[in-house]
């Protein structure tokens, strides 16, 4: 190969290879923030990706105008109901705070607050459930923060840049969520599965064989594992499959979040120092 005939080219290619291998090693040991090169690429690309996303959203708004107007009416009604519920909740929260103070209890769930973000890009791989959002460390987002929508669980923040973050969704192959089937209080694991990925489904595993799991059961986060807080709804069971090992049941879970049409998310920022918690 002519390229390798000169020593200069050989040295450059070896240097780049070594640098990239080191970069791969460093990024795989789980740093809290993205590296300089990754961050720079992310910062440069994010505004363009945000702009492109706005253009595409504007096109899809024109196409689905009447659908959005109906949705808007329904949402307004829901907002009024939610405001009433919030007023009740505020009363309960203040009463709760007083009682906690009286009993000198520490809140062990942490103070959670939400950061709204837009989905601006997806991974180039077709089998990857990874998305990019346009908020990052400068907005207070940290690695392992939980990402949700009003419908339910989206995933967790797996990489953080200055103005962007990468979110691993629950449909991604690397995702594994400790969950509970609400109706029967049965613990299980909800995982991404390649054979279900194109149907926007997840796999539920390790529910005990004698548990009365049935289709339509709601699955939510159990709070175990250290990443996801307890009680966030994941989806509902659509199909129960037989596991040949005889000690557990598997099922298909349809997430409440529509991942094929995901444009905005909320990041749950927690005051808990995630580094002190075991990984999920």
């Amino acid at each position: 190969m002519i390229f390798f005939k000169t020593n200069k080219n050989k040295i450059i290619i070896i240097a780049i290879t070594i640098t990239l291998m080191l970069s791969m090693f460093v990024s795989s040991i789980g740093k809290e923030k993205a590296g300089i090169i990754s961050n720079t690429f992310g910062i440069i690309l994010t505004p363009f990706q945000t702009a492109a996303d706005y253009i595409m959203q504007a096109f899809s708004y024109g196409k689905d105008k009447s659908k959005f107007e109906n949705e808007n009416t329904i949402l307004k009604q829901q907002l009024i109901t939610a405001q009433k519920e919030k007023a009740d909740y505020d009363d309960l929260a203040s009463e709760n705070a007083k009682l906690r103070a009286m009993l000198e209890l520490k809140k062990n769930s942490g103070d959670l607050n939400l950061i709204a973000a837009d989905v601006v890009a997806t991974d180039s791989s077709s089998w990857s459930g990874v998305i990019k959002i346009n908020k990052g460390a400068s907005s207070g987002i940290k690695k392992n923060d939980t990402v949700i929508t009003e419908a339910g669980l989206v995933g967790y923040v797996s990489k953080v840049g200055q103005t962007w973050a990468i979110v691993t969704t629950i449909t991604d192959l690397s995702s594994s969520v400790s969950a509970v089937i609400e109706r029967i209080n049965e613990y299980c694991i909800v995982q991404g599965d390649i054979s279900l990925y194109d149907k926007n489904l997840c796999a539920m595993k390790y529910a005990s064989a004698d548990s009365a799991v049935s289709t339509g059961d709601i699955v939510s986060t159990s709070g175990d594992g250290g990443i996801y807080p307890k009680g966030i709804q994941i989806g509902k069971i659509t199909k129960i499959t037989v596991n040949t090992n005889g000690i557990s049941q598997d099922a298909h879970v349809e997430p409440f979040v529509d991942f094929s049409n995901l444009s905005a998310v909320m990041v749950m920022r927690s005051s808990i120092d995630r580094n002190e918690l075991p990984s999920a």
Partner: protein
Amino acid sequence: MKKVLTYISLVLLVILGTSLGRYIEIFGVSPNPALCFVIIYSLTNGSVRSASLGLVCGLIFDSVSNVAFGFNGLILMYMCLISSYFSKRFYYHNKTALVFGVFMYSLFYETLSMLFTAVIFSDAPFFHTFFRFALVEASLNSIIAIPILFWVKWLNNEYIRGI
């Protein structure tokens, strides 16, 4: 100027693929226009230009991916080196061969990427992933390669005369 235009084209195609691509899915799979662009470019250009474009494209992919940073950069840099090596022998004057080259190199890249991200670390079944995703994406890439081919031709018309 041509180099600048080449890299601007790459960035635009990456944005097209990662931002708008999710709205344009065929059989649940989006084509990868940036990958097509670097393959066609490397099949019609010299090694140094091709390897650097492949490297930059891979690093941009890495910034929107959850894999170890540098993985796509490394794969694409070597893939572009290999494809530019064959360029003068097979693809220099033949559009059909270029489209076939896009299909084969896309399939190679997707299979390698799939092996390292899905099959080895996530126990995904190889054949399902290969037929359901890699093969479909490579086919879609070879279709969108046709307009990209003319764009690359315009970009580097002083290097390739025969296309």
